[in-house]
């Protein structure tokens, strides 16, 4: 209930430049209802913002998973996390608290950190989902992942995929900008590590930010 979390979470106000604050216009354009732009596609299956009714029986949902088209046939009550792990065999995102309070299930939806356990699978119709499996390319670990290895930024590893996704999101959002320890702590403020690897994670992310990014 009062879940734990040891990291500071003070955010954007004083460092707007870094986190690229959003103007009002950006809020509006970022959230346009796409229902009229999807000509040949099936509302509901391909576009979570289009009118329609789904369920209670299983129905198809299509989205982009780590750059590739994905489709699952799931009931409306299926969380994105269960669809990823059980239906799409993408088990990088972990199930721990199932209540949005630990961050083990962190994925990016259209580039934004989200808790997959508190998102329904049908919410991501037509959207882009990135899990830890999407960070490496062509069998080669990303700079961030290599930095985690070099800095010994994991112990049991159970929080690691969520940590990596949160940090990859940070590096993508802030490409070309100088990061501080506070910025990294703010980005992983929703990820709990019971093994206490935080200092090594912060060091790894700062290192990766200086070298090559996510």
């Amino acid at each position, binding site marked *: 209930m009062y879940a734990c*979390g040891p990291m500071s*979470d*003070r955010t954007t106000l004083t460092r707007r430049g870094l986190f690229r604050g959003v103007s009002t216009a950006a*809020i*509006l354009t970022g959230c346009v209802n796409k229902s009229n732009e999807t000509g040949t596609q099936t509302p509901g299956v391909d576009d979570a913002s289009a*009118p329609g*009714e789904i369920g209670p029986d299983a129905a198809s949902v299509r989205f982009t998973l780590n750059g590739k088209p994905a489709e699952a046939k799931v009931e409306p009550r299926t969380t994105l996390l269960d669809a990823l792990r059980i239906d799409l065999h993408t088990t990088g995102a972990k199930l721990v608290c199932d*209540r*949005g309070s630990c961050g083990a299930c962190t994925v990016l939806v259209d580039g934004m950190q989200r808790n997959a356990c508190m998102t329904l699978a049908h919410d991501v119709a037509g959207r882009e989902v990135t899990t830890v499996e999407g960070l490496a390319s062509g069998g080669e670990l990303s700079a961030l992942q290599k930095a985690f290895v070099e800095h010994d930024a994991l112990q049991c590893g159970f929080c690691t995929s969520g940590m990596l996704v949160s940090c990859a999101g940070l590096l993508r959002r802030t490409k070309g900008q100088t990061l501080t320890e506070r910025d990294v702590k703010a980005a992983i403020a929703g990820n709990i590590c019971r093994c206490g690897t935080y200092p090594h994670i912060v060091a790894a992310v700062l290192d990766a930010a200086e070298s090559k990014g996510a």
Partner: protein
Amino acid sequence: MERFSIVRLATLKETSARVAEGAGERVIRAGGIDLLDRMKEGLEAPTELVELQSIGGEEGTALRGASEKDGGWRLGALVTLGQIAAMTDLPKAYRALQVAAGEAATPGIRNAATLGGNLLQRPRCWYFRHQDMVCLKKGGDMCYAQTGDHRYHAILGAGPSWIVHPSSTASPLLALDASVEIWDGKASTRTVPIADLFALPTVDPEREHTLSPGEILLSVQLPAPVADQRSAYATAKEKQSQDWPLAEASVRLSMRGGKMSQVRVALGHVAPIPWRAKEAEAILEGKTPSADLFVEAAKAATSPAKPLAGNAYKVPLTHGLLRQALHEATGLAEA
């Protein structure tokens, strides 16, 4: 979670009619963070989640957008806490709200949690959140917190339920003199002071707000800042993140000629509603800021407090937070 359908309708009218016809069975879903939590805990098993996110056209734009008019701001009910925290063009005078939105929950939750849902989330009382505990709020005949473990419960305005209002945006919005715009589900909207959105448990221990089924919160409206307006928000949590606050203080004031005026003080997580501390306002109004005066105001703010055996720590905690917010807002000490 039990089985349910997702219903996405294109207009406000269809959406509220759908919910009003099946009150109890059909619920509005915004970001879904609180709703899914309640469903996973087995507190509720709606048959339909009726989505606000699918509302299109101008209605949808108004729900999702933020806009300025005559110096005041309108924040759509679907604007997320993350968006509020990151907005670059909100006046600095509304800082209390931006800080509160940016410190609530976690980055991932803030990207899903909407302003409307944040104000309408149900309480965090652990007896309420336990499927098997049928307390007063769930139609039972007693409040388990009153005699049980109430370390996070109310010290002000409580009884017969001792919840604290769970929203982190509520107390800054009360201090900023915000109003809420409500669609009645048929043809008209009404705009009421945000204080009128919330109701004490003496009115109805089973509810925290005054909306009827099918009524939809459309937006929160911030009035144009008063001259030389400053605002500040201070909170204390057991952990720095991932946690609802133990207590919060929000202030709004105008600083002219070295004196404070138009002072508003609102406290959070100490009462079943966001709590306006008029006693403190009266002490501060028209005065020159000083550390001693802030102590006096802080004591006045909690003078009506009736703590239970296990939550008296909230009294001095609230004193400290209010003093911190006043120091910050007046610039007497840097934040």
